[in-house]
């Protein structure tokens, strides 16, 4: 095989260990500057809280979960570190996609064995499960599993171990989605 073709087929990703070390150093910087790690799910939580608070304020006040995150001083829950972090994540991803040539028109990525529709249903279902799970787990894979374990939290370790463990347990049932 011509090496040129091989290179064309290969994606322009960075070395995963390089990415890992960069991510580790970033996490360290986040701990050093902010005293907490990275988070992705917190922003969505605050978004949900804000929307519910706007649409049905009385309902939000009555719910113990929503009211936990509504600032007492009446300011918007959106004015928060987590939201700015998530906005940054979005644009950071966009920048990388632009640099490495992955920023393209809307598309669905799926295994050749399944239709795009199946993939979208699976993605939606996975998202809902992840959404519920992340609230029980006090954070998602970046907040609880990565940052939690890196700061040596026992809870972070549990979430990480279970997340990957259960993934492997159920991987066989959903193999068609991926291979």
């Amino acid at each position, binding site marked *: 095989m011509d090496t040129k073709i091989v290179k064309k087929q*290969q*994606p322009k*990703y*960075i*070395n995963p260990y*390089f990415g890992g*070390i960069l991510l580790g*150093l970033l996490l360290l910087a986040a701990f050093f500057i902010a005293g907490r790690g990275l988070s992705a799910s917190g922003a969505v939580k605050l978004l949900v809280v804000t929307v519910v608070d706007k649409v049905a304020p009385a309902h939000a006040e009555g719910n113990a979960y929503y009211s936990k995150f509504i600032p007492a001083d009446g300011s918007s829950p959106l004015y928060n570190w987590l939201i700015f972090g998530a906005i940054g994540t979005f644009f950071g991803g966009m920048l990388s996609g632009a640099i490495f040539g992955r920023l393209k028109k809307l598309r669905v990525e799926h295994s050749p064995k399944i239709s795009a529709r199946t993939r979208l249903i699976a993605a939606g279902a996975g998202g809902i499960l992840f959404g519920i799970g992340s609230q029980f787990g006090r954070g998602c894979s970046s907040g609880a599993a990565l940052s939690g374990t890196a700061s040596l939290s026992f809870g972070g370790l549990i979430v990480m171990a279970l997340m990957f463990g259960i993934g492997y347990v159920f991987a066989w049932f959903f193999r068609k989605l991926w291979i």
Partner: protein
Amino acid sequence: MHVHELNPKKTVITMVIFVVVIIAGLLTLTNPRLKYALTPEQTVLLTVSDDGGITPEKLELMLTGSTEKVEIIDIRNHYEFARGHIPGARNISAVELLEKDNIEWLKDLQEKGFTVVIYGKNQMQANGPWMVFRQIGFSNVHVLLGGYQYYLAYKNHETQNYSPCKADFNYAEVAKVSVTSGEDNNQPAKKTTIVRRKKKGGAVAGGC
């Protein structure tokens, strides 16, 4: 193996930078000469217990009896020391106490099982240094209750029991009784007459 995983050059560079930062951190660390042997919590327990104080009576007993090995340190300045001190005392003024030679000497004494008694002109002066010694691990260091002043008084047989931390008055009673006496000179405090005062010499501040 993917192309991008073949040669981790950038990875190595980043990793080496990280390691260099950590080595730099290690090198710039200055190892403290003296370390605390007691935690703050243990120090609190020490202050609450009456451990570590020695009365002049006991000091006399220790000096006359031959069983115990005792060293006495006078932490007042050289001038005060020259004017009179407990026989056998060694003069190390407070600021010199933690000098290297003195720490070596104290370590030596500790190993040989000496009891060390430190005193100042009153108990207050020796109190802090005694606590520092205890906190850095010299559990054989004791403080002379009452200091040199009280020692002299004891020598001249003009003392009662030394109990500096007891209340001399029933404060609530005294404060109330004074209400009546206060009315004699019925003179309301005028803020204009009150001037902020700094600590004056002996006669004003030293009394209690």
